[in-house]
């Protein structure tokens, strides 16, 4: 089922780390890209070249290097904006998706401070006003990064934290969504693709329900932007967050995209240098977005690296990436279906999912499964994958997860399945 347009073996050659050997000289089979992906040479070079040739504080120096560093940083912002169909002014650099989501959550609590929304249009200001009687809604499949900040926001403001149930086969329950999202909802936050179940959520169906209730919509796009075409103009959401290190880019860089009129209205999250307009001892006014949300010296080299990662993905074509990765998911689901001692979490249909396949070996703890695979050079993730409530809902203590990226191959899936077959043997399961 290889597609002519996509040669994963060729793609692999661009990723120096994948040549590594591990655990007594075994070839590395890296199936943990959902946690952190590897970087192609072009990304490593872009980051390195920044330090080798233009390194200086952006937006600050009165010298040529600072100008060039600023150009590189702002150029990356434009590249990333193009990659998701947005405008550069609506892209805020953060250190990761977690910070991006906290930035939005803190806009709500900071909006409640006296004077914070002075001069903001009343219709927009009221969207950020949160207090007792108001509700914050997430789904039961969220990563802790899109759950704990909202719980904490509820605690700080007195608003009520609610969640939408999921079905046993790992989909968001739209009936539950219609029940839970009422006119009391001020914000609805959910993931585009589940980092455990792999489920691709019906963003616009959920957004429509949220809109009818008048709530703002926050999308966690950590597991979608790396693996499929994402166009903010097509998605009916107000904010979208993702991390560079899951999409072939460096660590230390993440993105918040937001609707301009909302970013414009929002009070800052972190404050200090670079985000100000005028500072007096008596008080300070703030720069327009995105600068308002980028306090302090930013991770400029990492932003440039992320720009290079977008260029790399763009050249592969996100439609091709999506098809390639769904082929691998199909192969994995087929292979696991032949092993009745394995239960897969989430949708059984490869077309409904992306990124990851989590599973449980009946009677063996995921930590032990991971250890046996690691011994064969196969790197996977085990545990609750920062989605503890989801595991509780599925009555699983934890799970094992394989996850893919552009450089993953059918050989990787084969190597994984072969190594997995040692588990029943070592643990004396009847198969």
């Amino acid at each position, binding site marked *: 089922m290889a597609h002519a347009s996509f040669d994963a073996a060729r793609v692999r050659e661009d990723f120096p780390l994948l040549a590594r050997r591990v655990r007594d000289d075994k070839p590395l089979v890296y199936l943990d890209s959902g946690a952190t992906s590897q970087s192609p040479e072009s990304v490593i070079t872009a980051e390195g070249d920044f330090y080798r040739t233009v390194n200086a504080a952006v937006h600050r120096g009165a010298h040529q290097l600072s100008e060039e560093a600023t150009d590189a940083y702002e150029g990356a912002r434009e590249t990333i904006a193009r990659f998701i169909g947005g405008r550069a002014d609506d892209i805020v650099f953060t250190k990761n998706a977690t910070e991006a989501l906290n930035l939005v959550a803190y806009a709500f609590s900071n909006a409640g401070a006296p004077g914070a929304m002075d001069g903001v249009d009343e219709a927009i200001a009221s969207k950020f006003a949160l207090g007792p009687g108001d509700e914050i809604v997430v789904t039961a499949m969220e990563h802790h990064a899109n759950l704990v900040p909202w719980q904490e926001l509820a605690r700080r403001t007195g608003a009520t934290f609610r969640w939408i149930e999921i079905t046993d086969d790992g989909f968001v329950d739209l009936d539950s969504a219609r029940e839970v999202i009422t006119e009391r909802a001020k914000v609805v936050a959910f993931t585009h693709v589940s980092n455990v179940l792999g489920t691709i959520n019906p963003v616009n169906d959920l957004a429509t329900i949220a809109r009818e209730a008048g709530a703002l919509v926050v999308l966690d796009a950590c597991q979608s932007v790396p693996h499929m075409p994402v166009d903010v103009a097509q998605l009916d959401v107000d904010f979208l967050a993702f991390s560079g290190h899951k999409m072939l880019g460096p660590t230390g860089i993440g993105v918040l995209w937001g609707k301009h009129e909302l970013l414009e209205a929002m009070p800052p999250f972190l404050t200090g240098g670079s985000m100000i307009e005028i500072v007096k001892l008596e008080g300070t006014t703030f720069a327009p977005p995105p600068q308002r949300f980028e306090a302090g010296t930013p991770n400029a080299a990492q932003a440039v690296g992320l720009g290079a990662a977008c260029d790399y993905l763009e050249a592969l074509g996100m439609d091709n990436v999506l098809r390639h990765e769904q082929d691998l998911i199909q192969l994995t689901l087929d292979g696991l279906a032949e092993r009745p001692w394995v239960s897969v979490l989430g949708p059984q249909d490869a077309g409904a999912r992306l990124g990851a396949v989590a599973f449980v070996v009946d009677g*063996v*703890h*995921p*930590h*032990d499964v991971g*250890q*046996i695979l690691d*011994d064969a050079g196969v790197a996977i993730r*085990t*545990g*609750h994958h920062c989605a*503890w409530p989801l*595991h509780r809902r599925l009555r699983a*203590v*934890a799970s094992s997860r394989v996850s893919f990226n552009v450089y993953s191959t059918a050989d990787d899936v084969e190597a994984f399945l072969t190594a997995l077959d040692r588990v029943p043997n*070592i*643990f*004396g399961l009847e198969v």
Partner: protein
Amino acid sequence: MDLYQELILEHSKRPQHAGLREPFGAESHHVNTSCGDEITLRVDVEGEGDDAVIKDVSYDSIGCSISVASASMLAENLIGLTLREAQEVFGATRTMLTSKGQAAGDEEVIGDAIALAGVSKYPARVKCALLSWSALQDSLGKLGLDLTGGAASTTEETKA
């Protein structure tokens, strides 16, 4: 692979002294946040100071084979010992587990736990093996007893 010694598999499938029992002097619940392993452990003690006798250790453990087996071995080793003797078992077990593969362990002192020697080569798994010990240390602490005999705590070491 040599990590999964027969003794570990046996203890994890049939954990000794498992289940929560009365009477008990103190109880602790510990979680390994990196993977979600959990243990609730109770200890019953008679007497005072280093001569106190550990009458019972009972536990409810959800986790990987290493954490369950380690709890089972702990209970098997410690029930009936004085605190002073328990300190010696703990010291020897901990030294082996944190040796990064350098210490084989003394079977005379730690019994079946000798099978956990291979764990010390895998830093992420050392926490699993020490989970029951940190719960015990905590429980004893609530009774004013010090499992370390004055040395560093397991929780600090597992963070390293």
